[in-house]
């Protein structure tokens, strides 16, 4: 426990210390232009917050489903009694289900025009 504390303190301390060094020793000449947004070497142009890259977001829905299943399997494997054949059968079935879900929607997800 002490080691973790030492690690966290030293690690974070080193990171913050470098920033402090920059703050103290680096030259500073703030100007209005310098603090503007980077826009390919020109002045800021247009608003930033716009539509998300929506076309591929189906994959994120897929992740939420599949990852939960995998996480469940992970927990089951780690906490179960060793060599429980029923567990392995369950995992195999789960993976088959995952594969079926992915195969079912893979074509839909690939066609990005459906998502726009």
């Amino acid at each position, binding site marked *: 426990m002490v080691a973790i504390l030492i690690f966290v303190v030293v690690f974070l301390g080193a990171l913050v210390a470098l920033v402090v060094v920059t703050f103290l*020793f*680096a*030259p500073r000449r703030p100007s209005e232009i310098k603090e503007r947004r980077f826009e390919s*070497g020109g002045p800021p142009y247009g608003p930033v917050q716009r539509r998300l890259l929506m076309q591929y977001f189906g994959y994120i829905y897929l992740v939420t489903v599949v990852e939960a299943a995998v996480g469940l399997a992970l927990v089951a494997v780690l906490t179960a009694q060793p060599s429980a054949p029923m567990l392995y059968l369950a995992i195999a079935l789960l993976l088959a289900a995952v594969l079926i879900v992915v195969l079912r929607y893979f074509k839909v997800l690939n066609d990005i025009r459906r998502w726009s």
Partner: protein
Amino acid sequence: MKTLVSQAVARLARWGTKWSLWPPHLVTACCGVEIGHIFGSVYDAERFGMLPMGSLRQSNIIIIEGTITLKMAKFVKYVYEQMPEPKYVIAMGACAIKGGVFYGSYHMVPASKVVPVHAYVSGCPPTPEAVLKAVSKVQEQIGHAEN
């Protein structure tokens, strides 16, 4: 004591800056071809610690590659203003010095009218050796800079 520390820090900073000159990707005109050669395998500016960077936020040296037109000058100035301190400029090519073959054109500005220049390189386009020489000149300037 305080001056001693600040001197040591300044020396360290100068050493780091000297060996790590990162130009942003700002191509102003056709000398960009030779810039490609400078970063290519034969002349390999990475030996001197140069690394072309994408964004101006991390970079500290502008290599002005040839002619600056009126339209480009605004952007060169803007990029220079937006770059963090310390920053250096190398003006490359006859056009950046005084106009070169385009002297008298209605759409062309010498580099010194736009940004302060630390080193000039002559030639149309300059050979990569010449530009690397200018880089090492700038490195010397940084190394010998008064604190």
